[in-house]
């Protein structure tokens, strides 16, 4: 990964690619790379869909190596949803292949003058950028099928569906899994709309003739990887629960904790939870000839993804993640697994963030556009989005815009981005993360659920405000650093509890890059990434009043614990004091 591939989509005479050395970006990867380039090169006051914005696609520091779990791909830009800096990351194969191709980043710059769409094909020998309007408005699954026919099976694809072409603020960037399903997404913040604005429909990465990146110290690297994999296998969450049930194992526990936001954040529990739990999904999947244990990229040893077949045993979607099951499930009052899996597929196919879309449809239900619990209406609304009807375009703009259009007071967003599946009144630590993350409301940015609910890395009482600022701060720092490595965030369960597994991760980085990182340098890396992101947002006009939850979380108590969000404003303003 010695180079950056820059493609000027607005160049005179058509798009032009140039390869540059890393320069000031040497040593950066993943979110560290995307946020460095955005904060340094993108004018913070630019329009996210205009030529001054850039879309940066970066594998992590360990992507494309033999390290397990190292295929996260970071996608960064100024977000059309939040108006701030954005990094959304995804699993799937592309990070591995991009790393092996030697690119530490692809940077899409400028905008084409007309309305043409392009495909970018990157192989070992050359980069081709071809106009191909026959791909326009293809859904992700149809698009990848076409790419397979043209380029064979040894590829990985990064693509947008119709939502990205229509520049919807909830549009995702899709990544293919090992079987070439476009089912892993950099979902949040409308990164797909920025790719659409650049006129790029798909990036095809040709895996032919590529070799794994070679570590500086092969022996130490192998030894560290062995200890790392053993640590993941030994921890009960990464070794047993995630492969057996996937992320949706959380439905029951968050519901039992009274932190499961149902009917647009009205209640903290949902009567239909057991019908859509991870346990129920896993049984259903197995009974239909599919299952809950699948790796989203080669080299994944946790295997938390899965495959969901319909009642005739035909592929319906990948196993929906917990947040998707929640957004189209309890949030909308829906308890039908088949309908939820159908909604998951439509989001992947149209190229939409499942969290933003499910939350938006729940807000539309609050407004009376459809009834809570009406799964067919939810699916029909998703088709409106995919078709780009006037109603669909309003929904595709996300929950904040839809709430304003429909006159809804209760709109669960921070910095314009929808809250995910954990109510901040009953899990106060996640409320701190939602409020203060530079990304807008994002559970992954500082996953306090681990400590507030799951008792990983200690325990902080979720129902009290004490200790939440420190918890969220430390997790936001650690997460920013992990997001730079290309490692899947789920390694955190093992490294929070097992110091020797954290050491194995450091040893992997050190053996590969010839470094001498310590836990202090990891903290330093995480802080520096957050500081760059906060600085960009500040220059884009964000102040401390943007680091707040919607007012109703402090005013309306949530059942069954009858709690409000109690962390004070002055405490929220302390999160980034270091």
């Amino acid at each position, binding site marked *: 990964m010695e180079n950056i591939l820059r493609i000027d989509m607005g160049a005179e005479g058509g798009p032009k690619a140039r390869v540059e050395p890393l320069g000031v970006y040497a040593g950066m990867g993943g979110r560290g790379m995307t946020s460095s380039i955005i904060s340094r090169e993108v004018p913070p006051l630019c329009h996210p869909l205009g030529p001054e914005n850039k879309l940066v696609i970066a594998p992590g520091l360990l992507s494309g190596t033999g390290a397990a779990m190292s295929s996260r791909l970071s996608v960064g830009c100024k977000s059309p949803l939040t108006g701030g800096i954005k990094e959304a990351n995804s699993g799937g194969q592309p990070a591995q292949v991009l790393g092996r191709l030697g690119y530490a980043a692809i940077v899409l710059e400028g905008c084409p003058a007309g309305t043409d769409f392009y495909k970018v094909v990157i192989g070992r020998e050359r980069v081709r950028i071809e106009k191909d309007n026959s791909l326009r408005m293809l859904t992700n699954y149809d698009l990848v099928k076409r790419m397979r026919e043209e380029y064979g099976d040894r590829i990985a694809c990064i693509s947008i569906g119709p939502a990205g072409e229509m520049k919807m603020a909830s549009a995702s960037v899709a990544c293919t899994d090992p079987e070439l399903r476009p089912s892993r997404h950099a979902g949040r913040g409308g990164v797909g709309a920025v790719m659409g604005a650049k006129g790029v429909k798909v990036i095809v990465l040709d895996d032919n003739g590529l070799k794994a990146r070679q570590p500086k110290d092969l022996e130490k690297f192998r030894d560290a990887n062995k200890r790392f994999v053993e640590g993941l296998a030994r921890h009960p969450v990464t070794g047993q*629960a995630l492969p057996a049930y996937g992320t949706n194992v959380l439905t029951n526990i968050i519901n039992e904790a009274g932190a499961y936001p149902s009917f647009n954040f009205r209640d903290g529990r949902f009567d239909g939870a057991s019908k859509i739990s991870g346990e129920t999904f896993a049984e259903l999947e197995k009974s239909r000839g599919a299952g809950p244990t699948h790796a989203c990229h080669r080299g994944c040893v946790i295997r938390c993804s899965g495959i969901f077949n319909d009642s005739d045993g035909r592929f319906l979607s990948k196993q929906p993640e917990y947040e998707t099951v929640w957004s189209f499930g309890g949030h909308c009052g829906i308890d039908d697994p088949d309908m939820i899996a159908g909604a998951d597929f439509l989001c992947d196919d149209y190229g939409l963030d499942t969290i933003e879309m499910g939350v938006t449809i729940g807000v539309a239900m609050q407004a009376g556009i459809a009834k809570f619990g009406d799964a067919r209406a939810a699916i029909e609304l998703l088709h409106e989005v995919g078709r780009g009807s006037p109603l669909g375009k309003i929904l595709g703009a996300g929950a904040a815009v839809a709430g304003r259009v429909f006159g809804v007071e209760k709109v669960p967003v921070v910095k314009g981005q929808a809250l995910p599946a954990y109510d901040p009144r009953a899990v106060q630590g996640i409320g701190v993360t939602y409020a203060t993350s530079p990304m807008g409301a994002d559970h992954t940015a500082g996953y306090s659920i681990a400590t507030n609910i*799951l008792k990983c890395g200690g325990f902080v009482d979720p*129902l009290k405000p004490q200790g939440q600022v420190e918890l969220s701060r430390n997790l936001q720092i650690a997460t920013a650093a992990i997001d730079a490595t290309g490692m899947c965030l789920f390694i955190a369960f093992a490294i929070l509890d097992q110091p020797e597994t954290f050491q194995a991760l450091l040893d992997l980085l050190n053996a590969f890059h010839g470094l001498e990182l310590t836990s202090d340098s990891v903290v330093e890396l995480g802080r520096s990434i957050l500081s760059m992101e906060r600085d960009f947002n500040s220059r884009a006009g964000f102040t401390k009043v943007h680091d707040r939850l919607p007012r109703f979380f402090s005013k309306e108590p949530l059942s069954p614990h009858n709690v409000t969000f109690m962390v004070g404003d002055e405490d929220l303003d302390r999160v980034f004091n270091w």
Partner: protein
Amino acid sequence: MGVFMKVTVKLFASLCSGRFAVGVFDGGAALTVRDILKSLNISEGEVSIIFINGRHEDVSAAVRDGDTLALFPPVGGG
């Protein structure tokens, strides 16, 4: 003395394999979570997260008539 009480016990994920998902536990007074685990033949090491009425507790916590006890093995996601 000898007060009869009912506790709803919910088992999740791997804990319900070969057992049950939701059951009612009948017992005498002064029960703790540990007593209930013992009578259900669940070892303390299998249980990572204990809720009584949706609040985190540990194995020494007292269980009262009408309580709901929810037990989870180590789980995670996100």
